[in-house]
């Protein structure tokens, strides 16, 4: 349970399958189906066509020339904001939806924080004719209103979750409860590299297309590998996706957690301790009695007290470094990219940008890839309402 016994789905001591008994059969079924799908060339072909023709891959690797000149390095952006529905979330949503259909499930439940995973899931379900229910914290429904409307338009039912902190954590609780109640016909399409085994592996694999493309594109353009790769980390799916392409290379990996206001934050890798949440051992923000703490970030998609087990492992072995960027720094980067490159980034991705700027200030001249995990249109109404723009 801690270190003595290693069960399946472990990254070092992290991960595992801390799920209620009712769900174990589903998790085993999913694990088996995924292994079969991986061995099936037809599945790979269908996924590839979907990624190309529905998602619009490959997404470009864009050289941000004005930003590079201002910041003093070579900055490349992996343009996941240009993927269908506006974020990297679609890569995993279409992959898991195809998998669910293969298993014979007719109904999909999902959680969403910023709404990007909810929109991606709703789109993937519409395309495959699957019923879709998205749980979203009531606070997030308010601050990501445009995404709620998009999900409804795509035919999904959006359920606002009123309990507790009314954010991503609560939405995951509710989605899991839904799944426990209808394990027969329902697949839980989790949106990040969190949850019980096999989810952290499946989601990483579906997101690893980001890293594979980025590596090829960078080498083609620059004739070498980048010095560092930077991505924001909430649950950590866009980061695992891009890290996967470089983890075996001599390339620095930097994850960026949400520093919130400083006093309140969402940075478990920097300030947390190992524990179990939502089915996996991972770094967590918790008190001495094991209660999960409330978090704060201006970016709904980073507002989560836990983090993927593989990130927890990469931190412990020192393969990736994890940093903190506060709300105000992220907002400054949000505006800076908009004005200097004509690209409005998601508030989540803005955390990664802000860290890139900091890194180049400390070590000028580096060649960097920043994973621009999503676009920021969704954030405008809420930012304007709060007079943060």
């Amino acid at each position, binding site marked *: *349970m*801690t270190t*003595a*016994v290693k*069960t*399946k789905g472990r990254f070092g001591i992290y991960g*595992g*399958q*801390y*799920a*209620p*008994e*009712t*769900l*174990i*059969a*589903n998790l*085993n079924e999913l694990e088996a189906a995924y292994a079969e799908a991986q061995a099936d060339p037809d599945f790979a072909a269908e996924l590839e066509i979907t990624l190309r023709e529905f998602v619009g891959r490959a997404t470009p690797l864009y050289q941000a020339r004005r930003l590079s000149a201002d910041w003093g390095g070579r900055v490349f952006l992996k343009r996941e904001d240009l993927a269908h529905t506006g974020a990297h979330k679609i890569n995993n949503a279409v992959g898991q939806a195809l998998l669910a259909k293969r298993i014979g499930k007719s109904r999909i439940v999902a959680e969403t924080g910023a709404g990007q995973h909810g929109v991606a899931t709703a789109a993937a379900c519409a395309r495959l004719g699957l019923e879709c229910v998205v749980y979203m914290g009531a606070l997030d429904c308010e601050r990501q209103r445009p995404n709620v409307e998009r999900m409804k338009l795509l035919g999904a039912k959006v359920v606002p979750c009123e*309990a*507790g902190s009314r954010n991503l*954590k609560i939405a995951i*609780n509710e989605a*899991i*409860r839904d799944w*426990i*109640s*209808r*394990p*027969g016909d329902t697949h839980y399409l989790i949106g990040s590299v969190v949850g019980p085994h096999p989810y952290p592996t499946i989601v990483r694999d579906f997101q690893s297309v980001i890293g594979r493309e980025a590596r090829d594109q960078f080498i083609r353009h620059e004739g070498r590998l980048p010095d560092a790769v930077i991505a924001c980390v909430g649950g950590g799916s866009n980061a695992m996706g891009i890290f996967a392409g470089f983890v075996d290379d001599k390339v620095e990996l930097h994850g960026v957690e949400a520093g919130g206001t400083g006093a309140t934050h969402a940075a478990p890798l920097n300030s947390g301790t*190992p*524990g*179990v*949440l*939502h*089915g996996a051992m991972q770094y*967590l923000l*918790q*008190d*001495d*009695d*094991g*209660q*999960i703490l409330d978090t704060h970030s201006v970016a709904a998609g980073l507002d989560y007290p836990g983090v993927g087990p593989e990130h927890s492992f990469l931190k412990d072995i020192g393969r990736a470094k994890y940093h903190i960027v506060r709300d105000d720094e992220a907002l400054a980067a949000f505006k800076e990219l908009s004005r200097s490159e004509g690209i409005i980034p998601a508030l989540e991705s803005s955390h990664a940008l802000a860290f890139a700027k900091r890194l180049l200030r400390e070590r000028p001249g580096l060649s960097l890839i920043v994973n621009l995990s999503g676009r920021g249109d969704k954030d405008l109404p809420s930012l304007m309402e709060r007079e943060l723009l």
Partner: protein
Amino acid sequence: MSLDAINAAFDAAGREARKALVPFLMSGHPTPDQFARNLAEAGKYADVIEVGVPFSDPLADGPVIQAAAAEALKHGTTLASTLAAIAAREDGPPILLMLSCNQLLAHGLERVARRIVEAGASGAIVPDLPFEESTELREIFARHGLVLIAMLAPTTDAARKSAILRQAQGFAYLISVAGVTGARDAFPPETLDYIREAAQASSAPVCVGFGISKPQHVEQLREHADGFIVGSALIRAIESGGSVADVLAPLRQACDATITTGTDS
């Protein structure tokens, strides 16, 4: 108290040809004082008592127990305050804690086991710690004479079912239907088959939980089960100002009625 106390409770029920009644109370709910009084009161009807230690993010609990946990946390309820309330009890049936895996990990498994023994409780039920992940805790509990209750769901496949039931001690907790905790109207016929099969395969007694709220449920399922766990219905009664006795007295009667006399409505 210990595993032995749980075994003794089921032995006594078996000798007297009645079903065990296992009520669930949430520590610190509706207030710490009222919980202590309810714990004493429930002792008059129960063979074993489950005491929930409130958790901020329970996965297997329905809205009723979830709300009770949130309320209890507002009153400052902790594992320590729960164990203190249990230790302060004068007498009563054996107690099992119900809590989430992270609450055990936060204190350290070995230390938690010692404190459970010191408080006089008998072990724990940990709904998010399935069989495969529970080896270490089972070993530590066994060294302290405590029991970790095994759980079975209708979705559990045959191979796992026999592995789980083979090591079950105290009793096996049969989750009645796929779903979270919460009261239900009646049980589908496959629930009866599931209980019958589990009871035949288990060397330990089997208790049915999730959705047990009234005597009719006990009557419907009593043929093969050794005991019944009642949670949400009791919590809801407490929430609306009712007494523990209102819910438990009729269930006690239904559990005591022998099979030959049939229903006692």
